């Protein structure tokens, strides 16, 4: 018998792509320029964030539009304790995890019973509240944020150079990646799938949806918190402008682009999201516009993402159903609509 959540049968090009990604990831710190390594480290940050949000959106099917709030809470916690209490980096990690988990519980408990699109708005509101609070409180340093954050150390080794930061990020990514993969093929992962597919049927199988939604939310928050902690020691200065709504949307874009629920998809999505704008730096003006148009086009053409999990099909079928219904509506009248539906069907 195959393992519970076996990945879909790999196409040859997917295997080749995976091999290329691994080779690049390993070779980069040895052969890359500092600039390239730094871009690579940023990719790693988005992989962490993407993996965390993937648990919420991909596994449990809950839409979170304020995910940057947990990223912020992790970053500010580490920064605050390192700067004001002169703590080392490592002990701030459990504190950051506790803070993000607690905020996940606080915002999740009352809201996870809501319809999922309401949840999207509440999380968006929460994200904005956290950002406004960070801008206005004194202990967060106001709009300037917290700077002069010390580097992380391992014994006498100070993690300051670009390659060493890259390896630290890689270590974070591997831990989160393994955790995510374990979750996907566990009892927890199955409970999430069941809730995502049919809540009533899940309950009939003995699953209490509210608990598992909350768990997805809390785990996602903790992963984002870890990413935030790493982000703080990488930049050594943080401020509220890194934790905007656009940041939340960017993280969402990582997993939507890659394919919700798909771990290789998250990695691919993070690489595209970071590298593409860097490559388009000359066209900075149109970057956000491209981003917006890209989201719409992606949803219309490939809602399941670049490297879909085998569950990507669900959304794809929903799209097909919408189109069928539009075509049916056409029968009632509207010649131009008929024409466009026909052209869509033929494409």
């Amino acid at each position, binding site marked *: *018998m*195959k393992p*519970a*959540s076996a990945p879909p049968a790999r196409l040859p090009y997917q295997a080749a792509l995976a091999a290329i990604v691994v080779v690049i990831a390993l070779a980069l710190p040895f052969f890359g320029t500092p600039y390239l390594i730094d871009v690579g480290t940023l990719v790693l940050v988005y992989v962490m964030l993407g993996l965390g949000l993937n648990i919420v959106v991909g596994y449990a099917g809950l839409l979170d539009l304020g995910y940057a709030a947990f990223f912020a809470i992790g970053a500010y916690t580490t920064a605050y304790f390192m700067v004001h209490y002169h703590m080392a980096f490592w002990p701030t990690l459990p504190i950051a995890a506790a803070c993000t988990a607690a905020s996940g519980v606080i915002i999740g408990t009352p809201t996870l019973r809501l319809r999922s699109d309401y949840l999207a708005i509440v999380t968006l509101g929460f994200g904005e509240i956290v950002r406004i609070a960070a801008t206005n409180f004194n202990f967060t340093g106001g709009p300037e944020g917290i700077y002069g954050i010390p580097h992380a150390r391992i014994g006498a080794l100070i993690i300051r150079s670009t390659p060493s930061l890259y390896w630290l990020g890689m270590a974070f990514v591997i831990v989160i990646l393994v*955790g995510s993969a*374990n*979750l996907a*093929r*566990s*009892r*927890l*992962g*199955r*409970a999430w*799938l*069941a809730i995502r*597919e*049919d809540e*009533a*049927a*899940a*309950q*009939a*199988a*003995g*699953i*209490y949806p509210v608990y598992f939604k909350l*768990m997805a939310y809390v*785990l996602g928050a903790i992963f984002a918190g870890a990413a935030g902690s790493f982000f703080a020691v990488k930049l050594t200065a943080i401020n509220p402008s890194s934790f905007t709504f656009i940041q939340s949307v960017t993280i969402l874009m990582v997993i939507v682009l890659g394919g919700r629920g798909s771990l290789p998809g998250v990695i691919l999505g993070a690489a595209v999201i970071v590298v593409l704008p860097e490559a388009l730096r000359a066209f900075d003006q149109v970057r956000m516009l491209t981003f917006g148009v890209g989201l719409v086009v992606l949803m219309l053409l490939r809602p399941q993402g670049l490297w879909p999990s085998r*569950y990507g*099909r*669900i959304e794809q079928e929903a799209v097909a159903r919408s189109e069928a219904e539009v075509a049916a509506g056409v029968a009632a009248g509207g010649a131009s609509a008929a024409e466009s539906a026909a052209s869509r069907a033929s494409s």
Partner: protein
Amino acid sequence: MTAQPSLRPPTVETPSVLGVERLTMRFGGLLAVSEVSFTVRPREILSIIGPNGAGKTTVFNCITGFLRPTSGRIIFEGLEITGLRPDLIVRRGIARTFQMIRLFPDLGVDENVMIGLHGRTRAGTLASLLHTPLQRREEKWVLDETRRWLGFVGLEGRAHGLARELAYGNQRRLEIARALATAPRLVILDEPASGMNPAEKGGLVQLVGRIRDSGVTVLLIEHDMSVVMGISDRIIVLDHGVQIAEGAPDEIQRDARVIEAYLGREDLQE
């Protein structure tokens, strides 16, 4: 692993598995179920029949916690379960299927059964995250148990496909396997034969018999009289939310009120 002995009364042998007492369900002005009472005895197959809209599924939804009854009590193995959450009722030992099949169509056949094992496994968040040896042992048990239940309903060769790819009759069987995987002592089947062809119905009758023989009590809603009369130990008839008859199949077939309720409407053949 499954039983929660502390919840059961110590030594008293309960005469009934399930007791429904004066169950009433009102939706706004509509009285869907009115003062229905019955008991289900251990290891019997009890069928609830009645014309469309008689309130059968409403009774099932109240028992399984998907609806909170307006009044009345539901006693399972001597303990009241009225208004308990559905997932907790499953853990107490009552499993159900749905009138319209509710599988997880885009998940694997095996995964559907594995999800049914949820309440019988314990791996928590940390164990799942870390993939601990204990969790691995449990997963192995899950695989064995899944294979066993798929075999029980006759789907052993189909484990790797998607649930949506199964034929209709086999989807019914899979739903039953998922229910049985929760290790229930009472299983409630809501019109399992609807939409089946005669051969599939024959197989279903056999399956229900084997479920009972394995020690599980069966409560059945069914329209198909050939199925009901063939396997039921007792039958309860509902009409317009009111219980109008109760008895063995041959008694029910002769009952004047039942004949009137059905023949007055001509959906006996349904």
